[in-house]
């Protein structure tokens, strides 16, 4: 006991004598300004309502049960399945098989392993972009003997011809993400599909669409018709609950026939993914899709305007391209119009993210791994950026809830924090 008391007294001495030159930062922080939609969007009100209704009705039975409670749960899942497929394809919804999973990562794992199984005898080679999410790149590395990675041009777009040129006789899988999580840049998946068809590719073309869905206008039914075998999607990236996602199989390309379940048991999800369904998560995903069917176009334009406003404001504060480089800021036809990837030469992006967090602005650098260390983004490397340049980047991505007031406040904070870091001065 006595030693604590002594310690407090010591610190008293320390505080009063040594540190009075440091002034106190009284930054009263209100709610955080959330600019990290590509890591996960905030839960949409419509998802909250669907969740609350399900909980309120005590409808959380097991959808496989015969009785009324089970049937109501199953009805919730079925309704959501229809809502999801109608959202993913206006005209070809019946051509899509929705297999609910625990999220985007499971969906990526399941589609890769599911299509490798069916190519067991030739499962030795895969081709992918060099900037896939680890859910794809690590799974490929672990599942295939060889992986050929194809880089991007300076705008972050992979070349379909290069993908096709990387094919070998034993290539079983080609993986191309729909839009990149870091840059937000759309990849030419349909064109890749066409080239692969021309080359007589007999394996599966898989597409991680987790970042695109809900933030980019795309018809997965049409892409499936072009020859994409399967897609991975994620609930929380579009404002549904975490812990739900789906593998979307193209029925037209007959891919259901070649898809092997990676998880066996009770035969749920048409046998494609055993395990009791995450009913609560699934109904939120259905509700979000149902809403976005009518609101997404307007929302994308609104968010794009806010993103452009944010970009202009920062550009005005840092007019010199030597101080502030816009690496990626796609318009809505070219990718995620919610995303702004910038580089601040001389400033570490990981430090900036922390400094911004301390001022109440949520942004990101590279992809945060679970340890908390922020690693350098493969997308920037694939675009030919040096590790140093890649380290100097920070990504802002706006979700459905972003407001003009937040954006204005955030741009002011970013400018202030960056100036402070540039000057290497202590905060006041």
């Amino acid at each position, binding site marked *: 006991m006595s*030693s604590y008391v002594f310690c407090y007294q010591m*610190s008293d001495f320390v505080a009063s004598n040594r*540190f009075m030159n*440091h002034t*106190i930062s009284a930054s009263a922080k209100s709610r955080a300004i959330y600019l990290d939609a590509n890591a996960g969007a905030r839960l949409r009100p419509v998802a909250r309502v669907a969740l609350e209704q399900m909980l309120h009705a005590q409808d959380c039975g097991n959808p496989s049960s015969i009785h009324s409670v089970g049937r109501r749960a199953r009805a919730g899942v079925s309704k959501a399945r229809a809502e999801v497929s109608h959202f993913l394809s206006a005209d070809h919804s019946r051509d899509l098989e929705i297999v609910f999973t625990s999220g985007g990562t499971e969906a990526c794992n399941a589609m890769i392993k599911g299509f490798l199984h069916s190519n067991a005898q030739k499962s030795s080679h895969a081709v992918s972009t060099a900037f896939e999410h680890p859910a794809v790149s690590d799974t490929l590395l672990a599942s295939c003997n060889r992986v050929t990675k194809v880089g991007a041009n300076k705008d972050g777009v992979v070349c379909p011809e290069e993908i096709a040129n990387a094919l070998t006789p034993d290539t079983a899988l080609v993986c191309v993400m729909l839009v990149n999580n870091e840059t937000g840049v759309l990849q030419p998946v349909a064109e890749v599909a066409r080239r692969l068809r021309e080359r007589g590719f007999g394996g599966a073309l898989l597409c991680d669409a987790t970042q695109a869905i809900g933030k980019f206008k795309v018809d997965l039914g049409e892409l499936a018709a072009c020859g994409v075998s399967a897609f991975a999607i994620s609930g929380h990236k579009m404002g549904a609950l975490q812990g739900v996602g789906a593998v979307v199989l193209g029925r037209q390309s007959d891919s259901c026939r070649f898809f092997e379940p990676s998880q066996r048991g009770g035969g749920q999800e048409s046998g494609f993914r055993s395990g009791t369904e995450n009913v609560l998560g699934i109904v939120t995903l259905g509700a979000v899709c149902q809403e976005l069917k009518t609101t997404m176009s307007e929302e994308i334009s609104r968010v794009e305007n806010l993103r452009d406003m944010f970009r202009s404001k920062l550009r005005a504060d840092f007019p010199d391209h030597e101080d502030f480089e816009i690496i990626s800021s796609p318009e809505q036809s070219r990718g995620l119009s919610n995303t702004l990837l910038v580089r601040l030469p001389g400033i570490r992006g990981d430090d900036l993210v922390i*400094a911004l967090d*301390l001022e109440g602005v949520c942004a990101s650098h590279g992809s945060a791994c679970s*340890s*908390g260390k922020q690693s350098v983004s493969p997308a920037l490397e694939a675009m030919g950026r040096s590790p140093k340049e890649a380290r100097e980047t920070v990504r802002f991505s706006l979700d459905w809830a972003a407001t003009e007031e937040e954006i204005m406040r955030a741009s002011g904070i970013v400018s202030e924090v960056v100036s402070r870091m540039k000057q290497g001065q202590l*905060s006041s």
Partner: protein
Amino acid sequence: MIGQGQKVVVAMSGGVDSSAAALLLHEQGYQVVGVSMQVWDYRKNGGSHSKATCCAPADFNDARTVADYAGFPFYVFDFEEEFYEAVITPFVRAYSHGYTPNPCLDCNRKVKFSALRTRARSLGIGLVATGHYARILKEEDGTLGLYTSENNAKDQSYFLYAMTQEDLLCTMFPIGEMEKADVRSYLRSHGLDVANKAESQDICFVSSRVSEFVETEAKRMKSIGDLSGGSIVSVDGAKLGTHDGVHQFTVGQRKGLGIAHSEPLYVVNIDPQTRDVTVGPRSALEKRQFSVGQVNWISGRAPENSFDAFVKLRYRQDGVLCRVEPLADGSRAMVTFQGSDSSAVSPGQAAVFFSNSKRGLRVLGGGIIER
């Protein structure tokens, strides 16, 4: 509140001491920002997580748990590059040149009290706290003094001798006064499991044998030094055998020489040029005098004259009374044991000078033992 909302970065390893340091400052009203330093990637560099004593996800989680409990922010800072350059490279180079380095010294000097402070400043935070057992006190002349913890068994001031006045001004040791048992019970009183965590002992980034680590890393580095083998010779010049590299030896070492001899043999000298490892009886090891380089004086001013001091040649050792004579404007010093005393000295290790004062043992400075 004492802290009055001042911002402070607390270096949190996930261990007992730094957890308590962070929590104490938080309770005293500081705006604590907890930081774990990722200095070594076991996934990338091999080695085992389970044996790792730092940078394992479990350690970060322990630190994060304390931060979440108290409600202050916590981040992992990537210091792998800085650490490799400032700690690993000199560590491997020293071994390949026949020295026995102490990497904790470099880590404190170049990473914790330098790189970390720079990163803290970029966040607008001027203060850095650690869980070291040592005290920083203001002297009558206005300078800052570094003192041992009154908790002698755990005192870590030996590792801090290279701190400058500027370092001391920006640094806090919140648990510097406390007893280890009290630190643990303080955490326990908050219901934090980390209270019972075992101490880390060995070099944090080495999960195998040091010599294996040095060999692996030396391969990665170019022109780092010579790890080739050589001869084991006796003090009178007779060749007794061969060895596989000077990095496998430490002056004062007795075990593992692989030589049968009538009396116990010790490594008494390592010659990095000829690759000779000289062995001899204990008496050959004893030195009455040795020099130190890269000397730091805590006060910022080298003493003009020789002075008496207690000198520690190892972390867990009582100070031995010596005469210290500053050389070359104080950047080096000659240390002579008092009376007929002598001791084994290991080149590469630190010799740290202490003096008695009414406030306890005070660190005057120190340096690296030269060959």
